[in-house]
């Protein structure tokens, strides 16, 4: 059977530069430029419809960019290029990268473009930046992502749009009146952004519920994982570990300096919720899914030469990445399982070499399904053409500062958060290699790719 391939999974390998003590091999390759992560920041991630609700997407992106400028003190004209990722586009600012860059005070001589790849849009922004530097086109690129779910483009119906466009062309009053007269009640029903995968018409939550069922993930397992995510996020927040978060003065509102979706609950309370997608027997609920989030992120990526010349101390080396795709119907959310072994093989590493894992948590059920798939010889042999199972990441290295379930998941912005978190965790925990994985969908609203990145100390 042929499978349609729409999913992709980027993998980035980073090496951490700040610790020189470990004697593990460097992943540097001859004749390939070393590319480094200099800094990464993000706005607080807020539940949509809260403090950010009156902004526009580029406002959030602007805040992240200004935060990055502030943190790095990089001269505005040193940056060669700016790339942003986003999923649901505000039509007025379709190239949100450019609008945000100008608004953040970057030189108008810096070209900017916007990419979209569902939940790994900012991963795509980052890997595009890597490509530009590796190709010798640029030395310093800002990559980032933004998502603004408090306001989404709701359109007139196709019928209504057609009538309105014809109205523009109508020459006489009679023509206009007859067009206006043709408007019926059906013309007035609005068109919401698709909440479903275009190819399969299946919503992401529905897909996640089926995936969980396919791997026999129980409701309790999902609730436990969600609770873990919230508890760890709370701990990290309280301990001040989420250094990538910048404070943001929202016009007309207070200064926002913390994520507001972290809510550790109890298993009993979570058990009370009804399934959100598959009724009445489903297992995915509001409590074990990531929530609609507003937020933006930004990272500064440079060639090592340039960074060192400018006196920066790189946070990590970005070595490699892999994108993979699978069947959008039944394997939509299994990117991490497919991508992890590929990127490890490319880098010549094994699972045990990795000190820090950051996986995107779209749904607790999706994470658990991936962990089960990675732990299954049958799955590896039947679907991946491998001799044996991929192996699962140890939980004591896995998403220790919370994840998308608790911190929030602004689709376009999550990738940069994962990468920056790996860099910070490697520094904090003294590890050498980190790995990021995320899964993305082909759809608009929901997204579930996992980008995976490995960080290495050099």
């Amino acid at each position, binding site marked *: 059977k*042929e499978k*349609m391939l729409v999913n992709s999974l980027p993998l980035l390998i980073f090496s951490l530069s700040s610790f020189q003590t470990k004697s593990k091999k460097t992943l540097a390759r001859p004749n390939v430029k070393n590319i480094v992560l200099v800094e990464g920041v993000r706005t607080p991630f807020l539940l949509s419809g809260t403090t950010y609700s009156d902004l526009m997407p580029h406002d959030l992106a602007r805040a992240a960019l200004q935060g990055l400028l502030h943190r790095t003190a990089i001269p505005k004209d040193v940056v060669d290029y700016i790339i942003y990722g986003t999923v649901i586009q505000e039509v007025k600012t379709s190239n949100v990268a450019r609008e945000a860059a100008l608004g953040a005070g970057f030189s108008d001589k810096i070209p900017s473009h916007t990419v979209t790849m569902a939940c790994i849009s900012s991963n795509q922004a980052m890997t595009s930046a890597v490509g530009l530097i590796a190709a010798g086109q640029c030395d310093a690129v800002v990559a980032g992502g933004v998502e603004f779910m408090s306001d989404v483009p709701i359109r007139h119906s196709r019928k209504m749009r057609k009538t309105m466009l014809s109205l523009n062309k109508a020459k006489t009053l009679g023509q206009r009146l007859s067009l206006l007269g043709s408007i019926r009640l059906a013309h007035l029903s609005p068109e919401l952004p698709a909440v479903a995968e*275009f*190819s*399969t*018409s299946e919503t992401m939550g*529905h897909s996640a*519920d*089926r*995936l969980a*069922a*396919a*791997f*026999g993930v129980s409701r309790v397992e999902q609730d436990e994982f969600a609770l873990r995510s919230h508890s760890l996020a709370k701990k990290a927040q309280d301990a001040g570990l989420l250094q990538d978060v910048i404070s943001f003065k929202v016009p007309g509102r207070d200064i926002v300096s913390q994520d507001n979706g972290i809510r550790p609950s109890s298993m009993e309370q979570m058990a009370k919720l009804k399934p959100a997608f*598959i009724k*009445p*027997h489903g297992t995915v609920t509001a409590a074990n899914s990531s929530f609609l989030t507003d937020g933006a992120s930004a990272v500064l990526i440079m060639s090592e030469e340039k960074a060192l010349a400018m006196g920066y101390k790189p946070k990590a080396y970005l070595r490699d990445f892999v994108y993979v795709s699978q*069947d959008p*119907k*039944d*394997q939509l959310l299994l990117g991490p399982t497919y991508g992890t072994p590929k990127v490890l093989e490319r880098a010549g590493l094994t699972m045990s070499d990795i000190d820090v894992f950051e996986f995107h948590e779209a749904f607790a059920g999706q994470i658990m*399904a991936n962990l*089960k*798939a990675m732990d*299954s010889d*049958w*799955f590896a042999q*039947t*679907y991946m053409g491998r001799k044996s199972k991929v192996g699962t990441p140890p939980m004591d290295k896995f998403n220790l500062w919370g994840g998308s379930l608790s911190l929030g998941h602004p689709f376009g912005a999550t990738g940069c958060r994962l990468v920056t978190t790996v860099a910070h965790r490697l520094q904090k925990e003294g590890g050498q290699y980190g790995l990021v994985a995320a899964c993305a969908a082909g759809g608009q609203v929901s997204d579930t790719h996992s980008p995976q990145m490995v960080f290495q100390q050099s």
Partner: protein
Amino acid sequence: MAGVRAAGVFSRFANSKYSLLSGHASRSLSVSSSVAARTHVSYELKDDVAVIRLNDPTSKVNTLSVQMQAELTEVMGEVWSNGAVKSAVFISTKPGCFIAGADINMIQACKSSEEVTSLSREGQKMFEKIEKSPIPIVAAINGSCLGGGLEFAIACQYRVATKSRKTILGTPEVMLGLLPGAGGTQRLPKMVGLPGAFDMMLTGRNIRADKAKKMGLVHQLVDPLGPGLKPAEERTIEYLEEVAVGVAKGIANKKVSLTKEKGFMQKLQDTVMGLGPVRKQIYKTVSDKVQKQTKGLYPAPVKIIESIQAGVEQGGEAGYVAEATNFGKLAMTSESRALIGLYQGQVICKKNHYGTPEKEVKKLAILGAGLMGAGIAQVSVDKGLTTILKDTAVDGISRGEQQVYKGLNDKVKKKALTSFARDTILSNLSAQLDYSSFKSADMVIEAVFEDINIKHKVLKEVEAVIPPHCIFASNTSALPIKDIAAASKRPEKVIGMHYFSPVDKMQLLEIITTDKTSKDTTASAVSVGLKQGKIIIVVGDGPGFYTTRCLAPMLAEAVRVLQEGVGPKRLDALTTSFGFPVGAATLADEVGIDVAAHVAEDLGKAFGSRFGGGNVDVLKTMVEKGFKGRKSGKGCYIYGKGKKDKSVNPDAEEILKKYKLAAHPAISTDSDIQYRLVSRFVNEAVLCLQENILRNPVEGDIGAVFGLGFPPCLGGPFRFVDSFGAERLVGIMKRFEDIYGNQFTPCQLLLDHAKNPSKKFHK
């Protein structure tokens, strides 16, 4: 013959997964099942839920066979007597099949209607016990749930079904000339309402799970799962079981309610249906409609209405008695035997009897993007065949591509396909004007103009560009394949593939082999046809092969009848009342008067005066005047857009008057006219068997019914001879022969059967 429209109820037949057939399972009635180990039904306790699993190890599908029923009864006895069991779940562990129906052999083995009636009573009793079960029973349905299987499921208290494409529910008994004889006619009206029940049982159509949920036939749906830690299908069944067990527990401890809150419309409908006069009107309307559609030729729909009516109006017991009695009566009718014969024949014709081809056809090229060519493309691209559609003009390929697109898009409109799937399917199609990439084609099917010189020209062009293994198939409707193959460098790779128009609707494919056609070529052609979803007959080469050859004398007779002053409308009425889905005059228009003229002339040359009758000049004159049938807007009738009632073409009547013949009063009654038409068809079919054009009567019957619209209630020409009596038919033909001569001379094989009444085409 290109262009026969034999749609109607019957055309859905072959698509249904109705598997009443399980002949391979031989079972001994004498073996006491308490002694023998259970092989079909097993059960285990999951907490306080008895999970009862069905799987017939001797067949691809589960049927309610003697063995299955005996084991079910035994297991239910154990379950009911076990105090620890609070609820039960029925589930099939066979992929893609819950229960596909009753065991047809059980019915066929009965010698009298009383025997069948008592079978029905037993089934009714068994399901009554399930309906009145002291513990709640949940039917967990994945795959086909048809006929007796559906009756079984609706006797349970609750139904959970997978939303899989393979999950279909329905009561297809009517297509076998039977009725749902195990309580179906009694329970369905209560469950889905009177109109819904009539619709289900009278059409026999398959209902997908989501529709079944809307209708109230199932309570809950479960999504099919993708791959996990086990194969998808296996895990889906397991998941279905988990959900069903949860529901069963829920019902047992009163957390799940069995009574559904009725909506306003439902309440309204119930109130209206509660009125006697309204119901009476419904019975009348439905009966009238059935009468109109079946012309009184099919007894099953009438008996279905009777049984439902008895139950609703006179109460349960009377209804069950009526159902069982009527079931017994129907099982003994020739119509039911004919329909069952067709069903069984159709199963045989959906298998490849020529082995696996050495090289699977993956890339198909079609020459000619007309109705036929594009139709063939349409049924190929959605089966994953990479398809080239080649024509000589841009207009041609544009029209052809549009036809394929429209065919698929109509499915999107009916929600049978997503727009995304449509686009993906269309990516298999490449429309082009040249022979580029023919070098990687595995099979070429030509559907160009019916002219031997053009056929030779394209054959040579194609052979210059295709790889050695590539098969050349001709979609000719009458030209002998060996004549076409004469121009080939490799006649073993040349074969005939005769499709019927419209290709996406007509299920038959007639494959024609010559003496030189290799077995592997035949295997490939059959394999492609099966992939395209066709019912296939393989026949020998000769003018008109089998189907066209049978149709030609009947059409010649039809022209004569018209010349004798019987108008097109009356001719149509006479043929449809005999059971043909399409009248003879309409059929000629559908086929195309030009095609009919062509065939009549070609076959007339080949077979001589035997194929005479009507004057070919009638057809030729009509063609000259532009009356080519439906495609040109005028033929025997005038066709206009949006017109439902077609009117007779007065200019055609003028032509007929010009060629007027005097009718012979001795053989011109309505019945005589019908037999003049049918006997020539039937005699030619028997002659085809005699001359080894046909390999067996089964394919003859299938070809005639599915390709030419021979009355399904008669089961095909051969079954017709069996049931009507060869002697009687020969007698009638002799009467005609006296007046018209050799056109009505019975062939030797028919005479043999007439002489010896114990000779039958079908055992």
